[in-house]
């Protein structure tokens, strides 16, 4: 390690330099954006306008606004005009309320060819802001591998080249942290953003955002996982970003009303202290708390989303991972996050790949990783899941997309759609751990069948049908992607609202917009189409807000006040909504209420919908989903839950005793597809969109986003 650090330090060569006086923060904003053009080496400061703050707020909103200015409808993800924008948000960086250290990454996705946004922990976003920048806007492409170094202490930004001995993200982050820290105690002041070799070779590349863990004395990684942000980063020939900032204080954000923030923080911190151990145990198991529950409620994806539970589910239960996670250590990915959910497996000995035999710290697995890399691929071995988690992260590939695309490949392999000749000898049956790990290594190395896998489900469907004669309709049914993005890891077959939550999501089927399965399927709280549509309006808007502020969603509802059950709308966790109103007002000095909070999101959400339209999709046909997300595709899927499906057909007045399974499948499919289309109608209406999913002009006017260029895009579709 020491020699790698020295080689890096000695080989550093500055290609471009910019010095600045870090802007003072005023109520959560610096008022400046750092612009870097990798094609020309231009580095400059841009003003953050009043309109940006009023309409786009920060974070994802700033990213969307800058990207809109940079690209045109013909821009592709690998054009120099495509930007990567990283921004926290006005609330981001406070330390008095949990989950306030997030960064939002926005770019054109290589998977969807439209906008992707990804919300990530680690220290980069807040340190960037405290270094004087509300956002970092990266434009252009370098002709050689480069680093962007932002020194918020001295007020200097450089574009540099240097020798880096590795493409593994855990080592890149470690080397750069060592190289830029003046001492052991200074390491906490460094944050690195990196992409690994998997981002060079796949379309599902991620960005790893680091923070230094002073308890373990290691650099930890959090992932901007969805949509191929790392692939864009490497296409720009970026090797890493580094920020250093050493002056963090309780009031670094210079809030308008510090005491109001402190009061909200005290309320939720008391709840976490007193209730987390009897609620979701986030401090013990993180989001892996969901594993046992999902298997028990038939919602855990098994064998490419065919089934919702498995007899071996208990082998990868919450308790199993609890026993692997180190307990009683602070695992927050930002200062002051008492929910402390980014659990880690310490001293894990790797059994495969380039680091075989080494003992490493593995960040996670979180629920999505364990479900995607585990049950969905028929893997019920926690060690294999932890190993796959580590390699996905360090190669820099998305665990969620990897889980879903490998599961798709495995089903195609088992059904004879592809074979050993096509996979280069890999026997990719469900549960084959050796083949599974080798495929991940191939994606990391850009070799063999890994190159095909790394293109994602949508492109594989085309390849398998065009080159190997597969039935394209069947592949469309079982290939779990929409808009080009792979599904995240929840079975939505029995929840119409969740089907809409996935299918209507702006960036593709990621659950961060709406997670309504329990409200809908289990609690039966959304009995009518109007109820579901209201939920599919409120929750996506509410959740969008976290991405405007630099906040994490988890402290909203993964801890709940004791009296939440007595409120009128417990699913909204009203007391925590009020906390968010308080901390926003406390930081910015504004006076919004919970309705204005939703309006802030609605503006950005609708702008993103129009952005999709501008890039060539975003109409009703793009909200179509694979049938497997709505119901059983195959006879064996139907028969595995025959009692459930039969009873639904009986409710429709059908005589199931006289029907074959094939006939029942067809009847159920017709019904469920009609239900989905009806849901889409009602949701569009609730959101103020046309029947084709286009935001109406009056909606744009009501929201104050009727800018001429926005109206021009919409008018073409009306």
């Amino acid at each position: 390690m020491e020699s790698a650090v020295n080689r890096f330090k000695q080989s550093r060569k500055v290609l471009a330099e910019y010095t600045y006086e870090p802007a003072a923060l005023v109520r959560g904003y610096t008022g400046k954006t750092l612009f870097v053009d990798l094609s020309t080496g231009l580095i400059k400061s841009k003003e953050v306008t009043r309109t940006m703050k009023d309409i786009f707020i920060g974070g994802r909103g700033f990213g969307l606004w800058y990207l809109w200015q940079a690209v045109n409808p013909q821009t592709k993800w690998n054009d120099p005009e495509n930007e990567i924008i990283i921004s926290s948000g006005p609330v981001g960086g406070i330390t008095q309320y949990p989950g306030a250290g997030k960064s939002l990454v926005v770019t054109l996705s290589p998977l969807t060819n439209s906008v992707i946004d990804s919300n990530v922990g680690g220290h980069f976003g807040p340190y960037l802001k405290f270094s004087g920048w509300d956002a970092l806007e990266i434009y252009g492409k370098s002709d050689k591998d480069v680093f962007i170094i932002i020194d918020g202490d001295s007020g200097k930004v450089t574009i540099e080249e240097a020798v880096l001995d590795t493409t593994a993200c855990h080592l890149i982050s470690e080397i750069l942290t060592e190289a830029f820290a003046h001492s052991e105690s200074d390491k906490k002041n460094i944050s690195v953003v990196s992409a690994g070799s998997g981002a060079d070779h796949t379309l599902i590349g991620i960005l790893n955002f680091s923070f230094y863990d002073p308890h373990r004395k290691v650099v930890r990684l959090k992932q901007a996982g969805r949509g191929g942000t790392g692939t864009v980063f490497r296409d720009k020939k970026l090797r890493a970003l580094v920020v250093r900032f050493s002056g963090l204080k309780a009031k670094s954000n210079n809030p308008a009303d510090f005491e109001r923030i402190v009061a909200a923080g005290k309320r939720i911190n008391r709840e976490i202290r007193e209730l987390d151990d009897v609620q979701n145990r986030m401090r013990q198991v993180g989001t892996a708390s969901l594993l046992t529950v999902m298997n028990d409620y038939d919602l855990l994806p098994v064998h490419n989303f065919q089934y919702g539970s498995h007899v071996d589910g208990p082998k990868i239960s919450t308790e199993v991972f609890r026993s692997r996670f180190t307990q009683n250590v602070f695992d927050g990915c930002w200062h002051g996050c008492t929910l402390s959910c980014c659990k880690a497996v310490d001293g894990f000995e790797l059994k495969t790949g380039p680091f075989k035999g080494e003992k490493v710290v593995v960040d996670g697995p979180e629920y999505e990783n364990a479900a995607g890399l585990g049950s969905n691929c028929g893997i019920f071995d926690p060690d294999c899941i932890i190993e796959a988690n580590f390699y996905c992260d360090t190669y820099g590939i998305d665990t969620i997309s990897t889980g879903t695309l490998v599961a798709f490949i495995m089903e195609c392999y088992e059904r004879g759609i592809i074979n050993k000749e096509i996979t280069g000898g890999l026997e990719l049956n469900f549960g084959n751990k050796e083949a599974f790990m080798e495929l991940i290594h191939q994606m990391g190395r850009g070799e063999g069948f890994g190159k095909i896998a790394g293109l994602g489900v949508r492109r594989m469907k085309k390849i398998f049908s065009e080159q190997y004669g597969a039935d394209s309709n069947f592949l469309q049914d079982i290939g779990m992607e929409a808009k080009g993005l792979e599904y995240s890891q929840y079975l939505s077959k029995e929840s119409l609202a969740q089907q809409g939550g996935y299918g209507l999501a702006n960036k593709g089927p990621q659950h961060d917009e709406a997670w309504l399965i329990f409200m809908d399927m289990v609690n039966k709280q959304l009995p009518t189409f109007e109820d579901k549509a209201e939920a599919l309006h409120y929750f996506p808007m509410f959740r969008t807000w976290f991405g405007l502020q630099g906040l994490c969603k988890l402290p909203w509802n993964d801890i709940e006040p004791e009296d939440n059950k007595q409120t009128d709308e417990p699913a909204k966790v009203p007391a925590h909504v009020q906390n968010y109103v308080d901390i926003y007002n406390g930081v910015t000095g504004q006076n919004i209420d919970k309705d204005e909070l939703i309006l802030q999101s609605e503006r950005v959400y609708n702008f993103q919908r129009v952005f999709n339209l501008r890039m060539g999709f975003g109409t009703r046909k793009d909200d179509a989903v694979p049938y497997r997300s709505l119901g059983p595709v195959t006879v064996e899927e139907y028969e595995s839950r025959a009692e459930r499906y039969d009873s639904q057909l009986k409710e429709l007045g059908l005589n199931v005793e006289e029907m074959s399974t094939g006939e029942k499948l067809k009847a159920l499919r017709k019904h469920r597809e009609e239900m989905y289309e009806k849901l889409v109608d009602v949701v569009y209406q609730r959101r103020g969109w046309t029947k084709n999913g286009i935001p109406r002009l009056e909606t744009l006017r009501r929201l104050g986003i009727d800018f001429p260029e926005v109206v021009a895009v919409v008018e073409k579709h009306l």
Partner: protein
Amino acid sequence: MVEINGHLVKWEEGMTVKRLLEIMNYTFPMIIVRVNGEAVNKEEWDTYPVPRGAKVQALHQIAGG
């Protein structure tokens, strides 16, 4: 029969809230139970009777993901 979250379940002699949740495999730790509209604290689930024909709501307090 008893109804729980819209599902019909065969009533059993001496049925308690705990037994009904077991039948449904409702294992989530944060559930609010109401039997015929009356809230039942978790400490009472072991003994609280579910009468024949009861309408039971088991509200899972989860909006995760």
